[in-house]
């Protein structure tokens, strides 16, 4: 299936259209952050400004469109700049882990034999460890901070890509055109790249788009638990961690502080949703053809 | 000899089953008529895609509806029109009065239930017996279809049996309620030739035992010759020739049938070449105007490209849908000479 046809179908499918619009929406916000929410300290744009030192979160008002979180962090600012953080986290993690996965999977599948076995066992070991636990453990070791979170997630996020890639390679390897290229004397690398990877990229695209969403969720979970972004950083999960006390502590009043949870939580949900919609639509478009 | 004066068991009149897909309407069955008399075997022969399976599924009302639909026609079973019945009523008939077996014995049985279970299911639905009796009946059926050690086999799973045995199980299942008609859709196509012969023999002997009619659908002319009493040849959704089996093989009166006969080796004829029919079966989304065979027919004239011929009685009991049967006869006479 040609790229052009895929794109056209993406636009036609209502579900993916919504996803696409959402992503573009987020993208625009991310790019336009400096204008939409000008930083009070240009050298540290990711630190959310505080409107005071009071503890209690303030509801949305004309001054703070989304209200303030505990410690008077402006939620609106956090959401806008948090969009950038989300994209950054997503792209870096998915990009690097996919790259690793593709590399590992392709090599394992192409060369086969004991190399393949060894690589697969290593992959299995990594897969056997529960994702969140592993991420927590690793961040414990590496220390707090977004960068370490990203490292942790990359370390445990490449396996699915690797397996996918490997199975694709295995099925393509025996296809005639690969054998033909080999017979014509095309070098190993050329064969791998041109024929194998380009033909098997589609399921990976599906997988990658789904993982954009799940990685952002995991990263925000870690921030929420206090292991990720430092306090006051513009990260959606981080902002929700402030909300914890107010939701649990308040008796009968919790809903008053809805904005501390719903707004950042909604941002995460919508972000993830949009990627999932696109990934799902991709799967619809590409799957019956693949079969 | 079949007594044709009996009440017709099945009377299909101008059946039209279309499939409405995104790419267009597929006229899988486009005006098909035939009859089946009690106790006889009607062979339906044609290439893949000619509509023979869809015809049988239409009779059983198993067409997936969207996108398929029986647009027109009546299917009379003992006088009752099956197209007018609802699914609940059809279910009483399926497996009971009319049974069907399919091409792929390897995948036609549910892998997670025992063979006996699946046979008993049919029995328990349609007959008023308890489980113990049903089990005994299932074992009896297995014996009748020639499966050794039936008391053991009845508790085995499909994957433990070979293809030939699975097909026997399918036959047992379909005959368990003593149907009046058995529809067999390419029952031997997926089997080895030796097993094929066994299965056909089994079907013939069971037919005599149970006194049922068989609708045998296949693309294999050899099979048709062996089991049928009468034959309907289908092409592109229509019946193009309809006759007694001996008349069909001895004296085909449609260019398509004649072409088919000449494309396979004959023990008696001394041919220099096997002539395949030129061209391909037309795309069902885009049938040609007029007679659907005109693009491949050596006798085609302008009339064939415009008007579609209907089945007409050319000799007693022998029908053909062709404008130029006479030309075919001329050509045949030349060949004999």
């Amino acid at each position: 299936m040609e790229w052009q046809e895929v794109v056209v179908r993406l636009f036609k499918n209502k579900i993916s259209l919504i996803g696409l619009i959402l992503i573009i929406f987020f993208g625009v916000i991310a790019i336009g952050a400096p204008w939409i929410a000008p930083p009070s300290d240009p050298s540290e744009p990711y630190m959310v400004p505080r409107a005071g030192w009071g503890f209690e979160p303030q509801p949305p008002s004309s001054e703070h469109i989304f209200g303030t979180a505990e410690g008077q962090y402006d939620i609106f600012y956090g959401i806008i700049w948090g969009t950038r953080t989300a994209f950054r986290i997503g792209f870096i993690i998915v990009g690097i882990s996919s790259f690793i996965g593709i590399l590992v999977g392709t090599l394992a599948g192409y060369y086969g034999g004991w190399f393949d076995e060894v690589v697969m066992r290593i992959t299995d070991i990594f897969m056997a460890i529960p994702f969140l636990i592993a991420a927590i453990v690793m961040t414990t070791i590496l220390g707090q901070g977004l960068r370490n979170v990203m490292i942790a997630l990359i370390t445990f996020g490449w396996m699915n890509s690797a397996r996918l890639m490997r199975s694709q390679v295995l099925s393509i390897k025996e296809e005639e055109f690969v054998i033909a290229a080999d017979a014509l004397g095309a070098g190993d690398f050329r064969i791998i790249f041109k024929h194998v990877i380009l033909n098997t990229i589609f399921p990976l695209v599906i997988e990658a788009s789904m993982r954009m969403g799940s990685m952002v969720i995991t990263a925000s979970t870690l921030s929420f638990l206090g292991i990720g972004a430092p306090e006051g950083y513009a990260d959606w999960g981080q902002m929700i961690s402030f909300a914890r006390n107010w939701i649990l502590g308040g008796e009968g009043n919790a809903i008053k502080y809805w904005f501390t949870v719903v707004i950042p939580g909604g941002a995460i949900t919508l972000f993830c949703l949009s990627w999932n919609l696109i990934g799902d639509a991709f799967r619809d478009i590409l799957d019956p053809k693949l079969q | 000899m079949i007594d044709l004066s009996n009440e017709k068991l099945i009377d299909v009149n101008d059946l039209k089953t279309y499939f409405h897909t995104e790419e267009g309407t597929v006229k899988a069955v486009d005006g098909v008529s035939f009859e089946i008399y009690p106790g006889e075997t009607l062979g339906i022969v044609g290439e893949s895609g000619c509509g023979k399976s869809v015809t049988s599924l239409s009779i059983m009302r198993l067409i997936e509806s969207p996108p398929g639909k029986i647009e027109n026609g009546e299917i009379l079973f003992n006088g009752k029109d099956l197209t007018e019945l609802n699914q609940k009523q059809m279910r009483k008939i399926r497996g009971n009065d009319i049974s069907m077996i399919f091409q792929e014995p390897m995948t036609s049985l549910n892998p997670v239930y025992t063979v006996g279970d699946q046979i008993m299911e049919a029995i328990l639905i349609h007959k008023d017996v308890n489980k113990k009796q049903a089990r005994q009946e299932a074992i009896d059926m297995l014996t009748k279809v020639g499966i050794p050690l039936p008391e053991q086999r009845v508790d085995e799973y499909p994957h433990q049996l070979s293809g030939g045995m699975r097909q026997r199980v399918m036959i047992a299942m379909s005959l368990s309620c003593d149907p009046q008609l058995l529809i067999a859709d390419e029952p031997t196509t997926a089997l080895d030739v030796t097993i094929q012969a066994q299965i056909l023999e089994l079907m013939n002997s069971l037919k005599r035992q149970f006194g049922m009619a068989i609708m045998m659908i296949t693309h294999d002319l050899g099979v048709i010759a062996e089991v049928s009493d009468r034959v309907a040849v289908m092409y592109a959704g229509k019946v193009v020739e309809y006759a007694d089996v001996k008349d069909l093989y001895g004296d085909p009166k449609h260019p398509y049938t004649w072409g088919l006969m000449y494309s396979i080796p004959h023990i008696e004829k001394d041919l220099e070449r096997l002539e395949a029919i030129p061209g391909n079966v037309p795309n069902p989304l885009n049938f040609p105007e007029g007679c659907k065979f005109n693009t491949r027919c050596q006798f085609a004239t302008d009339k064939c490209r415009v008007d579609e011929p209907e089945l007409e009685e050319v000799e007693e009991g022998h029908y053909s849908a062709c404008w130029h049967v006479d030309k075919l006869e001329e050509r045949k006479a030349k060949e004999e000479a």
Partner: protein
Amino acid sequence: MSRVLAIIGWSVPTFVFGLIMLMIFYGTLGWFPPSRLDSWALDIVNSTGFINYTNFFIIDGLLNANFAIVGNAIRHLIAPVITISILWWAFIMRITRSSMLEILRRDYIRTARAKGVTENVVVYKHAVRNALIPVVTVAGRMVLGLLGGLVITETIFNIKGLGQFMAQAAQQLDYPAVLGGTLYFGFLLIVINLCVDVSYAIIDPRIRLE
């Protein structure tokens, strides 16, 4: 429609969902409180008259014939259970659905219909068991993810369990605790995978004989 629901369910982060659940059902309505028991119930459980056989409050409540405890314990369980599982409901729903769609296209389904089997029986007897096979595979691997969700849920709902333990240990950089907890998780995993394999054999007779 169910597919859209499934995708949405899959997109909501567990902790956000948990917090919202708390917000609505506890904070506002007071139906499903966090923790495992209310304070009055805790007093009873810790008193001398109440015998703690298992420390599972529901079971102990039954064994001590104290239904108030049982009711209270259940009430506290509802929100966390829903929170932890909603993600996976969505996932399993999708997989089951696509698996069913796939199975319903199979030949033996057609055979069943040709026998005169009612549509209900076709679906629930013939199709479901076959469709469940890939679902069970996924369910097994999903337990892994469930354990992760445990961490968050326990933290939010203030339930003293393995999850909360791990989260706090990580926060406090307590290496031995983290390692020990991980080891235990690993053990649980193995046990669960065993159960999955056994259930495989129950569902699919083709696997039994090997």
